[in-house]
């Protein structure tokens, strides 16, 4: 565990010094701040707009961070040959993969936390501009702690995306890894449509194929409860637990695959 945490802390340190990350987080914080101005243009929808935009910004920029840093985690070490010195130390290959993953997970956690604080600050500031009567018609308070459930699932979704990026980076180039990860993320948003494909096609074979694929491919739509939290609709605890278990199982599966591939690899 000591080795895994050393590798993870190193990934975190490298990541936070990467200007690309600063750019992404800075831009996300700016966008969340700007949502205040966009909210001003709408009649009585300020809070909703800011929440929608803020959560979308966290999910989108988190996705960019997960993919662009995730795809380079292993590839960069191999391509630049820094892995030679590292693996000659008492580091087992699975510890390397786990350390890399946890390091990026820590980076994501800190970045999502920064974006979340930015969102809550904007909402808290906006809250001071309204009377109690105006606030009474809102479906939820401005700085609603219930939003943390949506942010938690966004983080979990990002961790699954990171696991995909890491898995692909153990055997392919960054370009291919990015294409595959983004491709799976997009397909994963429409997983429910795949499952119901047989309702819109006449060929039973195509229907079965689509249904089969829907079970194999990830379902990223289940992590999205943004609409529910913005409108203060109920989100059952069991749904949160099932989604969390689903995400963690996917991560475990992908990391096991990444470790199995990496353990057999020759670094020529």
């Amino acid at each position: 565990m000591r080795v895994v945490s050393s590798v993870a802390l190193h990934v975190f340190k490298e990541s936070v010094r990467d200007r690309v990350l600063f750019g992404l987080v800075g831009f996300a914080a700016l966008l969340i701040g700007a949502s205040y101005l966009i909210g001003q243009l709408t009649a009585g929808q300020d809070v909703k707009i800011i929440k929608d935009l803020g959560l979308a910004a966290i999910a989108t920029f988190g996705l960019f961070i997960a993919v662009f840093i995730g795809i380079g985690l292993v590839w960069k070490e191999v391509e630049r040959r820094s892995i030679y010195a590292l693996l000659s130390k008492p580091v087992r290959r699975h510890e390397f993969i786990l350390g890399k993953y946890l390091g990026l997970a820590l980076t994501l956690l800190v970045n999502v936390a920064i974006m979340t604080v930015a969102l809550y600050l904007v909402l808290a500031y906006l809250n001071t501009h309204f009377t109690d009567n105006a606030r009474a018609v809102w479906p939820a308070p401005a700085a609603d702690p219930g939003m943390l459930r949506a942010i938690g699932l966004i983080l979990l979704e990002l961790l699954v995306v990171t696991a995909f990026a890491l898995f692909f980076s153990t055997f392919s180039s960054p370009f291919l890894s990015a294409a595959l990860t983004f491709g799976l993320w997009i397909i994963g948003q429409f997983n429910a449509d795949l499952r119901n494909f047989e309702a819109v096609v006449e060929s039973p074979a195509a229907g079965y194929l689509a249904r089969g694929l829907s079970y194999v491919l990830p379902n990223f739509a289940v992590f999205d409860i943004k609409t529910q939290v913005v409108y203060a609709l109920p989100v059952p605890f069991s749904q949160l637990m099932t989604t969390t278990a689903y995400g963690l199982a996917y991560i475990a599966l992908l990391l096991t695959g990444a470790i199995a591939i990496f353990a057999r690899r020759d670094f020529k």
Partner: protein
Amino acid sequence: MDAIRTEALTKHYRVGFWRPRPYVALDALTLDVRRGEVFGFLGPNGAGKTTTLKLLMQLIYPTAGRADILGRPVGDVDVRRRIGYLPENPYFYDYLTAEELLEYFASLFGYAAAERRRRVATLLDEVGIGSERRLQLRKFSKGMLQRVGIAQAIVNDPEVVFFDEPMSGLDPLGRREIRQLILRLRDRGCTVFFCSHVLSDAETLCSRVAILARGRLVASGHLSNLLAFQVKGWELVMTGLTGEALDYATRVGHVARATACGVDHYALDLPVAAAPDRVLSELTARGARLVSLTPVRETLEDYFVRQIADAPRDRELEVSHTDAGR
């Protein structure tokens, strides 16, 4: 117990895209390196030196054969606590400083923070990195990175250290410092396995060498044994040598070349087949006097070139060999 032992260590790769063919990167290398020696692993570019080191570090897996370090298989994590490795042209993390890199690597060995800091400061002094230690590595020159690479290889005070081209990128002063460092490591009892194609370094540092060519071991042993008996001629320096005596010696084939060093003073190159005592007695009988007689031995470079030239050239296996590659 040997520090390093390999038995028929073999690595094949598959080359070619449409019809992959097995390619012999290393062919049945059997080698033993004793504890406390500086062992030179020599060969031209592409001979298989780095492949051997990667197999010993388990960065690649062998097609056949086995390798042990300090009596344990190379994959053993406990062995890695006791060894160090400098890869060829090392590259590290752009955004870390030299201090941070070494602290990171030291943390992998489980040293406490205070011990890590002490080790890192000492090591950076030892490899000649001063105030630059707080600069990010992306700002380092090749020579500076090489010094950092050497420092990280000995961060755990290893019992066996593997250097792949340790002098690469260093200026003459840097090479001298690293040579001295290697000798200090040897004096501490550390075994140094040192890959190079710079033969002067090997001649200065190594007690034993192995020469690899085209994936095959072509020679190994004590440097003195490899070179001592390879006398390739004699240099006879005489004074009072008359023109008539010189003409005679040249005519009968005793002298291959004569170089005048002064009046009646000559340096004579005698072929290896010449009996120097006979030539000497014939010339002294003609009035010449002996100044010196020195055997001209083969240098490591001559030996190396001869071994490489004789090595088999074919490195592709017959397609019927199905055990190639992993």
